[in-house]
Each structure stands twice: as C-alpha cells, then as structure tokens.
C-alpha cells in the first residue's frame, strides 16, 4: 500500500511509533511522519495538522524552554509553543511546502520557529523601553503593533532624521544610539576607527540630540506636542 493511500489514523499511529523509536535510540523510518506533514501543510488538511501538533507538541515545549533567555520571561511556555506552531504552519503551507523533501529539514524549520518566537519576544520586550515596566496589559498590547504600516512611519522618522543629520558619521551614531540602543562604550568597541573614546561619542551625541530635539517636524512625527525646548539645551 502506498503512503498516500494510508488512512490518516494509520499514518498518525505509524508516525507516533517512529517518533517514539527515534527518541528511544532505535532505528526509525521518517517516511510516515513526512507524509503526515505533507497532508497537513501541502494539502492543508486541518485534521492532519492537529495530528502533527499532537505528536510534536512535547518536542516544541522542550525547544521553547531551551532557548537562551527563556528563563528571563515571567510567563509559561504555552503561548510560545502555539505561536511557534502557527508560524511554522503559515511559513510552509500550500506550495511553500514544495521546497522541503525530507523530514529532518521540516523539523529543523520547526525548531527554528521555536527559537525565533522566543528570541523575537525578547527583542520586542527590549524595544518597549519605558513600556516594559508597565503592568497594564492593554498599554503593553498597544505597544505591540504587528501592523505593517508601522514600518512606513518608522521609515518616515528615519528619513527626517537623516535630513537633519546629513553626515554619514552622525547617521551611524544615531542608528547605534536610537535604533540599536548601544551605550557609548559599545559604540567605541564596535567602531574604534570612527570614535576613539566614550567622551568623543558623548560629545557627538550632545550635538545630535540638540539638533533633533529642536526640529518641529520630527517632534510632530514622534507625536510630541508643544514647541521645541528653549534655553541652553
């Protein structure tokens, strides 16, 4: 009997058995699991997708909890396991499955999704800056914006900043400080040929900040009302 003729129940059972063998250091046959993945992703059969999840759920829990930095997250793994599986599904469903010809490559992609869901969360949390200490979930949710139009706004802000800072050296410094959140010491370590001391970085930053803060267009783009600060600053 060919694989494609096997019932979903039979296929699921064989995949579960072969996975069990793999985890118990026995020779295993990957073709049943690959066929189950194919039905779940290439044919987009929800029932097959659920069977895949059932078989690999515990592996996903392990991977998610093994990601460096996961222990810094004060929440359990459930959200990340579901999110990793959703990302995996959306990335490989339909014709996108065609690029995968063997089980180890599919599992490598699933493992990668487990890593990236946690690592992306850690990156986003670091970017929340002042918001990250806020307990109110509604406020935190407002700061988490998967809306792709947010990218356009960021591009506009960056273009405005580049107009105010035409020199490449100033743009590099602004990128290091405001986009990558690097401290002066880190900037010197990364670009010793551009800035030799922290003091040099700090002096350049003073000048840049002054120019940016006084620009009304940039203030408007940042949603800051009122006139630019007056006085010595």
């Amino acid at each position, binding site marked *: 009997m060919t694989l494609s003729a096997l019932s979903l129940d039979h296929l699921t059972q064989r995949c579960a058995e072969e996975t069990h063998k*793999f*985890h*118990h250091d*026995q020779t295993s046959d990957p073709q049943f699991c690959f066929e189950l993945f194919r039905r779940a992703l290439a044919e987009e059969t*929800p*029932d097959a997708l*659920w069977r895949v*999840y*059932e078989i690999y*759920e*515990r592996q996903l*829990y*392990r991977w998610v909890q093994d990601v*460096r*930095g996961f222990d810094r997250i004060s929440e*359990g*793994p*459930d*959200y990340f396991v*579901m*999110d990793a599986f*959703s*990302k995996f*599904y959306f*990335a490989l469903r339909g014709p996108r499955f065609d690029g995968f010809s063997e089980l180890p490559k599919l599992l*490598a992609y699933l*493992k*990668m*999704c487990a*890593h*990236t869901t946690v690592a*992306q969360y850690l*990156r986003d949390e670091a*970017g929340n*800056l*002042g*918001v990250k200490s806020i307990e109110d*979930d509604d406020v935190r*949710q407002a700061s*988490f914006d*998967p809306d*792709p139009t947010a990218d356009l*706004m*960021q591009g506009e802000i960056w273009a405005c*900043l580049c107009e105010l800072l035409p020199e490449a050296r100033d743009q590099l410094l602004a990128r290091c400080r*405001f*986009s*990558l*959140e690097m401290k002066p010491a880190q900037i010197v370590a*990364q670009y010793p040929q551009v800035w030799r001391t922290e003091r040099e970085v700090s002096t350049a*930053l*003073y000048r840049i*900040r002054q120019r940016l*803060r006084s620009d009304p267009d940039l203030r408007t783009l*940042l949603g*800051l009302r009122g006139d630019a*600060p007056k*006085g*010595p*600053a």
Partner: protein
Amino acid sequence: MECSFPPPLTSDQLSAALEGLAEPDLQAHLARCPACASQLKAAQRFEQQLSQRLYRWDCPSLQRLGEYHLNRLTPDEAANITQHLKQCARCDEEFAGLRAFMEVEQRPGDQPVERPPRRPDRPHWREIVARLLPHTPTLALRGSAPGPLTAEAGDIRLLLDIKPARGGNVTLDGTVMASDQDQWNGALVHLRRAGAVLQMATVDDLGGFRCEAFAPGVTDVRIASAEGRTIILLDAKFAI
C-alpha cells in the same frame, strides 16, 4: 518657568543626565530645581519616543534570520542579510544565538518534555481577548435553538454556532467578521480544553471555519492570523 538656582543646565549637562552620567552636584540641582527637572523630563520623553519608534526598525525579523540560517532565502535576500549582519552588532549577536541553538542536534534518545499540567490562568498579553456577549432575547419557539454565541474583540466579531453531532458530540460552525477581513483569511483556529488542543481548523475566504464532532464542554478558542495577530476566547461553554 525659570531656573531656581542659576545658571540653568547646559546642553552637555542635560545629555549627561540623559545618559545617567550626572555628577552629584548636577543631581542635586535637578532634585531642587523644578524648571531644570521639567526640562530633563521633556528631553527624556523625546529620547524615549525616538528610541521606541526607531528600535531595530531596519533589522530583519528573527524568522528572517532563521530562514537565512536554513538557506531558505533567494541569493539577493541572503546577500542583504549578510551585509546587515556585518553592520549590526545586535543582529549578529542574535544570529550567533540562533546558530548555537540550531547546532545542538536533536539526538536519538533526547526526550521531549511533558506539557505543563495546567491551563493558562489568563491570556498572554499579546493575545486580543474576545468577550462573549449576552444572548439577545428572541421569540421563543418550541424546539428552536437559542442562536449562535457572539463574542467581540475590538472591531472583530466571532459567531459560534454549536450544533448536535453523532454520539453526543457537537460541531462548531464559526465565523470571523472583521473590518480587515482579508487578514483573517487562512487564519489557524485551535480549540483547547484544559491546555490540550482538541481540534484545529482554518478560516476560509468568507471568514468561516468548522470544527467537527467534539465532546461538549468549556473550551478556549484561539485564532491566529498569518500577520501575527491572535484572538483568544476563554471558557466558552459549547453545549446544546
């Protein structure tokens, strides 16, 4: 407002305070002078807004870095990532972490872990919580069903119609209605009970989905869109 203890802060001093490098005399000045403290607060707000809006704005997502690692990008896309990694210390560090994680091979004999024997007490803050609306009173007809359950999450509405199925089970016919309907086309639906996934389904191009023949009971519904938005409805009572 004028500085209470002139001279007021210079630009250098303000920047030092922003970097957290204020000398003790500067800190003392800021503690006593409302005008200078307010000036610092405004500068901090500006700095925070700028950093928050620009944070990693042109960095590839972690998923993109992962696809780069697995050689899943086109040559042009891969060349862009290679170039970016040369210039971006943060991405380079994250990529090193990803590579190290992926290089730990899954060996035969490695045991997966058990799912924690619990259900989430509350949704993750990134999930949009849907709330059930009370049933609107309808004309009571003998044998008529009470109509579908309705839940709302912002401008998204879920209709959940429970119908009897064989063997005392129920079937769920659901509909997602949203102003950005296209975003929910193909979304992945999970039905969960006590933390375990009961069934999965996908949302069709009209917003509909179906979960066939499952035991009635209190169930969570989670719907994830390809764009990364997730709606969760907790503790829906699916029964006839």
